[in-house]
């Protein structure tokens, strides 16, 4: 049994490629999937700005319709496949907002929040599952293990349901 090393916690952050390079590579890989290509087209057509920030935990954030953030801890950097799938998810949300499907105003009844925000999340997860499946089917991306990564991201049950749904047409 391997013991954890507490000194991990004290690292000053690991070196990573430049933000612009990580974003460009992620968009390049996304464009290899039909649904990912739609997101890349959306980024180009709507001039979506993508930024990487340092945050304690991995997070994606859409504070404005044309501005998306991907954040993660430099001591615990996310894998390239996780980065790509997180980007796909937040870009899908930006697409929803651009289409006028927005989260309810804070003062709307809770039931309306549950209905709309849950539907938006479900759609986002459907989209990530679709992109992950399309990329996973390509030999060039075998090493990225997109479906395994999706499960690690907490979409395990959703992916099983998605695959079942796709299989049954």
């Amino acid at each position, binding site marked *: 049994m391997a013991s954890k090393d507490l000194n991990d916690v004290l690292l000053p952050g690991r070196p990573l490629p430049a933000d612009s390079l990580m974003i460009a590579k992620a968009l390049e890989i996304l464009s290899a999937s039909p649904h990912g290509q739609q997101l890349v087209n959306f980024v180009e057509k709507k001039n979506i700005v993508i930024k990487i920030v340092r945050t304690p935990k991995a997070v994606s954030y859409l504070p404005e319709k044309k501005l998306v953030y991907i954040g993660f801890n430099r001591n615990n950097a996310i894998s390239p496949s996780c980065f790509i799938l997180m980007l796909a998810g937040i870009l899908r949300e930006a697409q*929803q907002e651009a289409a006028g499907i927005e989260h309810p105003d804070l003062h709307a009844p809770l039931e309306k*929040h*549950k209905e709309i925000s849950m539907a938006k999340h479900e759609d986002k997860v*459907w989209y990530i599952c679709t992109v992950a499946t399309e990329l996973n089917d390509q030999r060039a991306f075998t090493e990225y293990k997109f479906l395994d990564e999706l499960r690690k991201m907490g979409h395990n*049950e*959703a992916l099983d349901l998605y695959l*079942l*749904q796709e299989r049954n047409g």
Partner: protein
Amino acid sequence: MLQKIKGFGDTKEAQKVEAQIIERHSGAELFAPAVTAPAVKHTLNVPRL
């Protein structure tokens, strides 16, 4: 436009999202509808450790 995943509502992930929705909705108490400036939570009375 929105896609569905059959059975998604019964997943643990959906429960987690519902909790996030409730947490966000609780913000309504912090921001009065007619006020545009950000509301502030006072913590002046919290003792320092």
